[in-house]
């Protein structure tokens, strides 16, 4: 018979909480004693939203702009990573040996190199070739010179920084697709052979079998690790600040360089990332319970 876990606070719980609170207070006093730092929290709200006297309206400032960019990058690269990862996962379970080997090589290379290194290699070697080949800069600049670009700005932010945004999205998607590929492969392989053989026996081709039998079940089964990967992608997006993509971490670095408010700026950014990732994890938990029913 299972023990019911206690739901009300016992005196022992209060004791433990008191010990933890005292511990935190002691550390806080030691830190503020030796830190010699002038806190300026009153200046931070201005960098989230600022009130413009002339226009009489609120404008988003550095930190919120960075947060919105991070959200854009996370969404676009996770969609791209999902597509690439699904293709990779299918390729990993293909019958053709060459395709299996290529997929395996790609996965192993990207999983075993730290993301910072991948980002730098991609940025300095590949992304410039890609942008030059597609003539992306001139195209983006022409758009930014037009008058009515509200829709473009909603989806992509400042169009002049569009090539760097795309570089960041692509490299993040390439990196994450390795992990998504492994997850999808595990999902596909968890579908019993019996189902696949039954599908073949009634005359379904390989594409039909994938589309109607295997993939729907596999993707629904691996939704928990996929949502975990998405949240991990939001955190990994802070790495592309090293290639000067204008997302939240980079904007915070700029804020610190301009105002020397090191601790306030970084603590605020940590809170913003936490709100974003925790909100996403709550959303995914809701999705998972819906999918299970």
């Amino acid at each position, binding site marked *: 018979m299972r023990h019911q876990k206690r739901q009300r606070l016992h005196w022992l719980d209060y004791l433990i909480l008191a010990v933890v609170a005292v511990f935190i207070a002691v550390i806080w006093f030691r830190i503020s004693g030796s830190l010699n730092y002038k806190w300026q929290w009153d200046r931070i709200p201005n960098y989230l939203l*600022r009130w413009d006297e002339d226009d009489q309206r609120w404008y988003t400032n550095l930190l919120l702009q960075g947060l919105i960019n991070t959200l854009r990058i996370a969404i676009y690269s996770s969609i791209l990573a999902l597509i690439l990862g699904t293709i990779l996962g299918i390729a990993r379970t293909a019958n053709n040996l*060459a*395709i299996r080997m290529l997929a395996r090589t790609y996965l192993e290379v990207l999983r075993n190199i730290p993301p910072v290194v991948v980002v730098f290699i991609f940025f300095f070697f590949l992304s*410039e070739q890609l942008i030059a080949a597609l003539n992306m800069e001139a195209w983006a600049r022409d758009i930014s010179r037009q008058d009515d670009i509200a829709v473009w700005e909603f989806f992509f932010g400042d169009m002049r920084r569009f090539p760097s945004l795309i570089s960041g999205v692509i490299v993040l998607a390439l990196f994450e697709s390795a992990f998504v590929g492994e997850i999808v492969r595990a999902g596909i392989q968890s579908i019993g052979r019996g189902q696949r053989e039954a599908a073949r026996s009634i005359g379904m081709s390989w594409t039909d079998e994938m589309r109607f039998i295997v993939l729907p079940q596999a993707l629904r089964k691996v939704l928990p690790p996929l949502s975990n990967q998405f949240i991990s992608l939001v955190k990994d997006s802070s790495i592309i600040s090293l290639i000067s993509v204008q997302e939240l971490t980079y904007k915070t670095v700029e804020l610190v*360089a301009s105002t*020397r408010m090191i601790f306030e700026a970084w603590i605020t950014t940590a809170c913003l990332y936490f709100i974003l990732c925790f909100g996403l994890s709550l959303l995914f938990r809701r999705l998972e319970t819906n999918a299970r029913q």
Partner: protein
Amino acid sequence: MKLTRRMMSAAMGIALATSLALPAVAQDARADLSKTSVIEQIKEAGVIKIGLSLFTPWSMRDKKGELIGFELDVGRKLAADMGVEVEFVPTAWDGIIPALVSGKFDVIISGMSVTPARNLTVNFSDPYAYSGLTILANTAMTAGMSIEDYNKPEITFAARRGATPATVIAQLFPEANLLLFDEDGAATQEVLNGNAHATMAADPTPSAEARKNPETLSVPFSETFLATGESFAYRKGDPDASNFFNNWISINWKNGYLKERSDYWFKGTVWANQVDQ
């Protein structure tokens, strides 16, 4: 016609082969383009892309989140004189030279001091600003020390990685310890906390920091180190760009624009109310 596995793998093989050939084609295009000068490219595109890294008061974000500073004024005047638009590309300092070499922007105007090591990778124009480095020290920890006393193993310096002060400290005070950080703010914080004895930074930052924290920090010596001057940096193999930038800088020294802007940003504090300092 049924889509057999063999056809799929053949198609994938062809796609892979063409995708590997594509960067080679782009490579040729890039090589051709770089034979012509960056000045031509700027004229053709109608915009000059200037790479900079935020560093008070060369370039910083004001309360509205806009870029202001000495570099911004210089860049805007340069673009106006060339008759093109200007686009500032804020870049992390560590990667600013590789970004220039790989073509992310046309020129670096970011208070970059001329050093032989950098000159091997990029070309420099004539200096458009002269700002020396001064020492910012923790008053309590360095009381009564002469400049030779700083060159001892017990002394710890803090500096921003990849910036000139780090190299100068390593040269002038080889016996002392050197801690490297990604930002100046972190290096100054180390001195404030007492974990490092001193840091070095380009004027007027040390004086401004000493004014903000008079009990803890001070500028012990009035001498400046390494006033070699800061210049524009641009890609190698471009004589037209050299000629254009050098002449532009020389003209703007002679007509007083560079001196006036430099005094406004470095010696005055009129702009201080626009920025949270």
